[in-house]
């Protein structure tokens, strides 16, 4: 396979020069404007996209083609196969075939949950939507919530209980468990250990405590590779106790992010993005907030910032210390580094001018010192209780997880553990490399693993017990602010699986109760209300327990906190570990939607990479897609290079969660394993990385260069001050020809006229819309080879544009669905009338008429049409069939497809409103992307009704259409992006 980029396209100086000439650019290749890039641009699909890539000879291919052509006619003579209808025997209440039902539950990611409503069709969960009443969701969802439904149907899930690979029954397992635990009871169970990931579930916590009470000598360990290790240590430094911290961005005028990607990743990000965007684009946009981002790798939050400063991981601590000193935090000395004085003075003045209405946000992966400094700064700025809320930790029991795991590993090594029960987690894969968990696991007499997948840890344990997916069982969990949700099952377990709750209960009260009884029993005891039945029904129905958010605390800074800070040393290239934005710690590695979802800034799919700045890459003489050997403290791993604009110098960022070897068909072998380099004393990175170039190429599948619209003015932006002086700058920069200037017949839309407005100021590049679209519209995944051939199928893409110096650019995010042009170029060229205009202005796509000429895609100026080059849709796997949306046709090979504004939802609402003899209300139809969007950047509705939100947005002077000069009259338009830079800070950096 040809690679799309060649090494070191142009020297760095040329890039910097080009950046000065060109306002917006999408990639370094585009910026360099090399002949290779020009060639790439002028072929919509690469030369090999239309070729048959499989290893079949040309002769054989033509034989097959002739045979299939000859037989094709015969298919018309077959009759439709007979279909059966299987009605209920006893219909459940409220079930109306043809109407979905929605049930409230919560999606837990590493113990922190987001409240959702799950759409089910006759008992099949098909789609996840946000729960409008839940504080973490407010109706929107994260990528993980959207993708969780695919995890449920993952065909590679663990399916049966086994012992040393031999199938066993649940009864066999219980018996064996009893046999191994009974002898331990005499010794009070000292040789019995339980290992879990972070537990926030109160009922599971109670179960574990009960087991520990039964075996007083037994111990419980928690380990999450990407957990809040630093946050906990930082809170201990500052306050002497662990606290959970969350932020009220709706009250913050100035935000300082210290290596935090709070808009797109981590607990509460969906809510944070919502609050942040409302302060940015609310009202008449005269009162915008301001975001400063200091970060050690390019993130969505950094790209959105009004000012961004790329600093190495360790330098951020020095910066925070200097800033805290200049804010007058008591008992602190400056680092003496004298770096970035203009930043320190401007930011500290801005923060102090907004006392009580600003916030300092440390990144979860930053050092404990940065967390402590952030606490001290927030306290000095009077933000506590206003923009920063402290509560008790969400965990049932907050522990130092690394120390905890180290103790377990030492005990295992010393042969002090007889029974190890691992509930969830995946320590063989993700424990720190120096713990050598795998080898030590084999020193334990009996190892039992309860896990969703048959993963790296399962296969090393003797007993494998499949775990129920959260959509299959009862449970409870907490959100970022402590709000509790009782999770209800939406489907019976697909396989012979059990929950951790049920397994522990079988130890406590053999043979064990059902999860329902356990959870209900726990809440009956805890709640103690007389009308428990009513309370239970309401809590389960609403998807949250009313007023269960943890009460705010007012922790006091320790007087001597600053003395425990240490100065980080630094030399050589610094290595920074990050949880992957999509795969997180690796738990979603087998989720194909997340594997193929283009990464926020690099748009990489199916791989991770070593992110280097352009200058560092030049210095090391490596280019994109070069294979290198990383050597960190003697541990080596082979990886590929990606040059990232905005990465600090001498710093390499790598994402955890890749390179798994036992995750399933999708995750195995995708990317490289960063855990192999990760030591327990430098969890988030350190200095001294060595990079050695190998003479190998490794193609990386990025979608950044796909569907390029040749650098016309597709992004419009201004600063808040410029907008104030020149409110009509958008109309000066775009040229809209008169409506009559067209050969198309004029058409008046008298009924509904559907339209969409996308606010670029609000979009934070979280990609929830892309996965939501994929789930709603049965969009297939294609795999790495096909992405390389530019055949990715996402109907909605988010284009990332950069502006300015490649060393530290500003970034702009632009979601691009089908524009639903009124004068649609695609419709004219279809020889079989497979794409037509509907009476309400939609550009309909009729799959069953399409013969696959691809003329429409050629003629589309926005490049939003997708073609099924091969049979991308999985027609075979039974589990994935269950996930499909029954209201959308499943497309086959040779068919063009594209966004239709979720026409199935429009037609459903249309029918419902006509049955009730009324008009569709504003907001009644939400497209899938709109519904998932945390920041409400996408608004959809009838533009003929001027009271509708979408019509109001389109009447703003920020409204513009892409390529308006073509007079395609797109129904999707954009609102130009506004930024609010600090006039004191001249440059971006």
């Amino acid at each position, binding site marked *: 396979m040809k690679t799309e980029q060649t090494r070191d396209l142009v020297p760095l100086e040329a890039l910097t020069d080009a950046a000065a000439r060109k306002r917006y650019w999408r990639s370094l290749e585009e910026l360099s404007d090399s002949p290779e890039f020009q060639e790439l641009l002028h072929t919509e699909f690469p030369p090999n996209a239309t070729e048959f890539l499989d290893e079949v000879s040309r002769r054989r291919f033509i034989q097959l083609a002739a045979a299939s052509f000859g037989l094709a006619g015969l298919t018309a003579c077959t009759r*439709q196969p*007979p279909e059966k*209808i299987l*009605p209920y025997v006893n219909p459940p209440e409220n079930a109306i075939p043809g109407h979905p039902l929605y049930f409230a539950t919560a999606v837990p990611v590493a113990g922190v949950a987001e409240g959702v409503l799950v759409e089910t069709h006759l008992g099949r969960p098909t789609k996840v939507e946000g729960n409008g009443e839940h504080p973490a969701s407010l109706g929107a969802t994260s990528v993980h919530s959207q993708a969780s439904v695919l995890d449920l149907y993952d065909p590679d899930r663990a399916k049966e209980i086994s012992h040393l690979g031999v199938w066993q029954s649940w009864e066999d397992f219980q018996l064996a468990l009893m046999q191994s635990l009974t002898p331990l009871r005499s010794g009070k169970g000292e040789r019995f250990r339980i290992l879990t990931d972070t537990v926030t579930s109160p009922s599971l916590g109670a179960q574990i405590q009960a087991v520990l009470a039964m075996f007083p000598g037994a111990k419980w360990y928690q380990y999450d590779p990407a957990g809040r290790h630093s946050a906990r240590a930082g809170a201990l430094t500052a306050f002497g106790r662990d606290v959970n911290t969350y932020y009220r961005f709706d009250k913050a005028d100035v935000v300082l992010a210290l290596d935090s990607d709070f808009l797109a990743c981590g607990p509460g990000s969906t809510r944070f993005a919502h609050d942040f965007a409302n302060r940015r684009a609310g009202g008449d946009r005269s009162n915008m907030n301001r975001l400063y981002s200091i970060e050690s790798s390019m993130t969505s939050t950094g790209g959105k910032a009004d000012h961004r400063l790329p600093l190495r991981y360790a330098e951020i601590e020095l910066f925070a210390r200097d800033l805290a000193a200049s804010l007058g935090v008591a008992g602190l000395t400056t680092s003496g580094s004298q770096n970035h004085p203009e930043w320190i003075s401007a930011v500290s003045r801005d923060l102090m001018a907004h006392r009580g209405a600003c916030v300092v946000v440390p990144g979860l992966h930053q050092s404990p010192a940065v967390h402590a400094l952030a606490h001290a700064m927030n306290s000095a700025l009077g933000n506590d209780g206003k923009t920063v809320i402290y509560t008790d930790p969400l965990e049932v029991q907050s522990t130092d997880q690394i120390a905890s795991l180290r103790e377990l590993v030492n005990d295992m090594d010393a042969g002090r553990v007889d029974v190890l029960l691992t509930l969830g987690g995946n320590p063989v894969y993700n424990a720190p490399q120096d713990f050598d968990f795998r080898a030590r696991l084999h020193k334990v007499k009996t190892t039992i693993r309860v896990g969703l997948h048959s993963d790296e840890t399962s296969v090393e344990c003797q007993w494998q017990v499949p775990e129920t997916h959260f959509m299959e069982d009862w449970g409870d969990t907490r959100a970022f602010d402590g709000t509790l949700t009782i999770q209800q099952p939406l489907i019976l377990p697909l396989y012979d699986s059990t929950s951790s709750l049920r397994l522990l209960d079988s130890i406590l009260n053999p043979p064990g109760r059902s999860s329902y009884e356990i959870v209900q029993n726990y809440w009956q005891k805890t709640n103690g209300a007389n009308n428990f039945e009513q309370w239970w029904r309401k809590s389960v129905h609403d998807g949250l327990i009313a007023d269960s958010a943890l009460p705010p605390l007012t922790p006091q800074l320790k007087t001597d906190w600053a003395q425990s800070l240490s100065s980080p040393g630094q030399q050589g290239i610094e290595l920074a570990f990050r949880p992957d934005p999509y795969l997180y710690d690796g738990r979603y590695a087998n989720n194909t939607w997340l594997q193929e979802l283009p990464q926020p800034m690099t748009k990489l799919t199916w791989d991770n990479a070593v992110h280097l700045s352009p200058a560092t890459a030049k210095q090391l003489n490596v280019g994109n897609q070069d294979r290198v050997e990383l050597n960190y403290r003697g541990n080596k791993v082979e990886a590929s290079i990606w040059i990232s604009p905005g990465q600090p110098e001498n710093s390499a960022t790598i994402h955890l969660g890749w390179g798994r070897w036992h995750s399933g068909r999708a995750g195995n072998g995708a990317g490289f394993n960063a855990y192999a380099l990760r030591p327990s004393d430098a969890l988030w990175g350190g200095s001294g990385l060595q990079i050695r170039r190998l003479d190998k190429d490794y193609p990386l599948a990025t979608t950044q260069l796909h569907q390029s619209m040749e650098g016309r003015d597709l992004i419009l932006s201004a600063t808040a001050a410029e907008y104030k002086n020149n409110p009509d700058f958008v109309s000066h920069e775009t040229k809209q020809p008169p409506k009559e200037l067209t050969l198309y017949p004029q058409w008046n839309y008298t009924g509904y006229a559907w339209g969409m407005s996308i606010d670029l100021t609000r979009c934070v590049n979280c990609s929830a819309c892309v996965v939501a679209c994929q789930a709603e519209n049965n969009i297939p995944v294609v795999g790495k080879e096909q992405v390389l051939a530019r055949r990715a199928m996402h109907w909605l893409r988010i284009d990332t544009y950069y502006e300015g110096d490649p060393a530290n650019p500003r970034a702009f995010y632009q979601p691009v669905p089908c524009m639903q042009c009124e004068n649609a170029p695609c419709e004219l060229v279809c020889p079989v009338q497979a794409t037509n205009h509907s*009476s309400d202005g939609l550009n*309909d796509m009729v799959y069953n008429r399409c013969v696959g000429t691809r003329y429409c895609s050629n003629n589309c100026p926005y490049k939003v049409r997708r073609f099924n080059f091969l049979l991308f849709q999985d027609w075979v796997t039974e589990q994935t069939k269950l996930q499909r949306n029954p209201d959308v046709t499943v497309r086959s090979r040779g068919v063009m497809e594209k966004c*239709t504004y979720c026409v199935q939802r429009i037609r459903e609402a249309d029918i419902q409103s006509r049955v009730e003899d009324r008009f569709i209300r504003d907001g009644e139809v939400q497209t899938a992307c709109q519904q998932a969007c945390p920041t409400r950047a996408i608004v959809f509705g009838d533009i003929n009704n001027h009271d509708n939100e979408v019509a109001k947005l389109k009447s703003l002077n920020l409204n513009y259409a892409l390529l308006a000069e073509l007079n395609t009259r797109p129904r999707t338009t954009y609102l130009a992006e506004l930024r609010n830079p600090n006039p004191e800070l001249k440059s971006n950096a």
Partner: protein
Amino acid sequence: MPQFFSRTANSLARLSLLAVVLGIALIAWLGAMIVRSPYETLQDVPRRQPVPFSHEHHVGGLGIDCRYCHTTVEESSFANIPATKVCMNCHSQMWAVAPILEPVRESYRSGKSIEWTRVHDLPQFVYFNHSIHVNKGIGCETCHGRVDRMPLIWQAQDLTMSWCLNCHRDPGMFVRPKEKVFEMGYTPPANQREFGRKLVKEYHIQSLTSCSTCHR
């Protein structure tokens, strides 16, 4: 040298050219006819069912309303096939030991569905909605025919796209008063065109022929 071909050969050659053209046309026409014929559409072909349920008896004879069994026809795309429980409402008392009803009782005992054969089977890319048609004055009979005279159900219409469009292009010719929707044997008035126009206006009926009305 003797001639190989007689004089008639010229005419034959010309004729055979014509025959080829006509032959291709005939094959195409035949194909088109077969696709529209009951062989392909299964129009008017009674289908074998696990229980020989007779609409003739239940609707024509007993006068049970369509909605007693097809419960969701007014509110959902799917009209619903009755649950076994609905059959047993009566048949736990009536014909409670009839051998012909054994599959019903077996389903009720075991909890396994009766596997009915679908009679009106639209392609997977067509999305039909019962509720909107029933609520806008399109009678069951208009598409399903005289169900009250069918001992075993068959498809009364060919269900081709052109048949759908007949009505979608001119709904006035087929609409009836809402209170007559579930009536069998309704005779449209002589002035259906005028009467239909009045109903179309009163019921806010639209002639919807956009592709995405049915194809999504």
